[in-house]
């Protein structure tokens, strides 16, 4: 048996290799998106608009040049900002879904298409290590990286907004820094990453498996075959009155195979979604301070997903497909 240390060292180099290969997508694209959002926020601030503040202010006066708020309003604003700021740069999470999807799709396919597979196989690196390094990148490193980037970007955008507000007379920054939510919310966000890891496994596993099997047109196979199968089953179901539960198939199999990499897609489960919707309704109709009830519901709901069989069955299926991908990479005999 090989000792642990060289194995970790090898994994480190494998991950670095993935980064070298995909630097464009992993680094420059997210940075570009983040910079674009920040630039937009700065431009808006310079032009006098501020997206952050849209609430009623019975205790203060708002005019074009100065905005003066009472102490309670300031506190409410600070609280809301502290609780919601982490989601300000949310487009990055959408980008992340695409990144993880396209990365997994190509991970085991590109090296066969450009024939570099045999070069990698000429080195003492096991197929297991190679595939697991790609899983680690897709499930762990990309999400963590995006979370960090998103938090930094969101913070900057929020600060831009608050700076404008301060310039116009109301400085809530000290209140913001004192609010416990300001420090806790990012941590809660990072804490959701493990849920993402487990939930996204079936898609990652499916894409890696197709990526290691398909000889060409990998995206057609990865996306087309589940959809086609579902369509055929739907047709058979209707045509022959088989009485199959198509909705179950779509929401539990097809969507899990294809869209589990979208963060938050676990909220398609009704049981998880309802508390959030409820909290949202409360926040809509009640005082604005209840907005962090929505956010709390989001985090708690995410963690509740871990208690559902949906998550675990999907994770096991995903893990099995990853094993299949390793087996395929090992055994496939290329021309």
């Amino acid at each position: 048996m090989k000792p642990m240390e060289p194995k970790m060292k090898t994994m480190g180099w494998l991950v670095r290799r993935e980064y070298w290969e995909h630097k464009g997508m992993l680094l420059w694209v997210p940075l570009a998106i983040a910079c674009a959002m920040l630039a937009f926020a700065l431009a808006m601030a310079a032009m006098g608009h501020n997206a952050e503040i849209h609430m009623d202010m019975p205790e203060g006066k708002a005019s074009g040049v100065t905005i003066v708020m009472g102490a309670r309003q300031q506190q409410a604003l600070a609280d809301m900002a502290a609780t919601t700021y982490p989601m300000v740069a949310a487009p990055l999470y959408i980008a992340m879904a695409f990144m993880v999807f396209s990365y997994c799709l190509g991970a085991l396919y590109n090296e066969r298409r450009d024939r570099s597979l045999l070069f990698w196989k000429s080195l003492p690196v096991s197929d297991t290590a190679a595939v697991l390094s790609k899983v680690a990148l897709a499930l762990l490193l990309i999400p963590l990286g995006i979370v960090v980037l998103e938090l930094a970007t969101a913070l900057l955008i929020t600060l831009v907004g608050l700076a404008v507000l301060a310039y116009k007379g109301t400085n809530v920054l000290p209140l913001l820094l004192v609010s416990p939510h300001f420090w806790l919310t990012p941590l809660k966000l990072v804490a959701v990453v493990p849920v993402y890891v487990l939930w996204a496994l079936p898609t990652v596993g499916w894409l890696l498996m197709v990526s290691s099997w398909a000889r060409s047109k990998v995206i057609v196979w990865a996306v087309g075959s589940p959809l086609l199968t579902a369509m055929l089953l739907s047709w058979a179901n209707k045509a022959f009155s088989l009485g199959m539960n198509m909705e179950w198939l779509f929401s539990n199999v097809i969507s899990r195979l294809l869209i589990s990499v979208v963060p938050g897609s676990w909220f398609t489960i009704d049981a998880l979604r309802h508390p959030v919707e409820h909290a949202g309704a409360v926040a809509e109709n009640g005082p604005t301070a209840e907005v962090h009830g929505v956010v709390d519901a989001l985090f708690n709901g995410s963690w509740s997903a871990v208690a559902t069989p949906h998550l675990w069955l999907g994770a096991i299926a995903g893990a099995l497909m990853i094993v299949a991908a390793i087996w395929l990479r090992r055994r496939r005999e290329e021309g």
Partner: protein
Amino acid sequence: MNAIEQPVISARNLVKRYGKQTALDNTTFTIQPGRIVGLIGPNGSGKTTTLKAILGLCRFDGELTVLGMDPRRQRDALMNDVCFIADVAILPRWLKVREAIDFVAGVHPRFDRSKAERYLANTKLTPDMRVKAMSKGMIVQLHLALVMAIDAKLLVLDEPTLGLDILYRKQFYQNLLEDYFDENKTILITTHQIEEVEHILTDLLFIQDGRIALSASMDEIGERYTEVMVEPHQAAAANALQPMTQRTVFGKPVMLFDGVPRQQLQNLGELRTPSVADLFVASMKGSYQ
């Protein structure tokens, strides 16, 4: 166990079929350490399949031991001591020289970074160059730099100079002999350019239709095979000795004999040792018809 006597590769009755086609048909051979062996055969003869089997890249039936290991079961361990350059083991286009060295240094226990850098210092390659900016010759230089810095016991070269121009080809074998090869290493080469490697080989393996048609050291070949430029008036006597093949050069028949002692042939005309290429063509009768 006497390490010197253990063959580096020992193959017995290897069988591999792709559907109806048989690539390896009870292939049997042995390769001793410290030798440079040429595996020569026409396309489709099972050359590539043999190499793949040795490197654990395909399944097969039969017994095969490489450096004391079974390539099917112990492939990961085997790759610590075996290196290969194949014309299809291409370096990825996005890879930089620096990254290639860093990666192999990090992953291979027997890689000596300074050796690779020393070799590269004599080339036009710079650390930040990407493979996609390199000519084929430069890519092979990079690959060779990596391989030469690895202290492997067995080096397998599958058409390593395919598509390279003459300067790179000559330099390839020069560097291989000068800086890499020693009595503890074994090299197995497959190539179509037989003339290029003829003199550096110590052993020959001819393969045809999945079987070994000839397995001999270069010394044995010199003693066993003789080419005679037969004087016309001796033609009948020469034919009586049953030559392997015959061709005509300037009106004189040139005959190749297998196992006929030189004394018997001396009076028939001018004697010489056949080139590996001529020997190969003679052994492969039937392959090209």
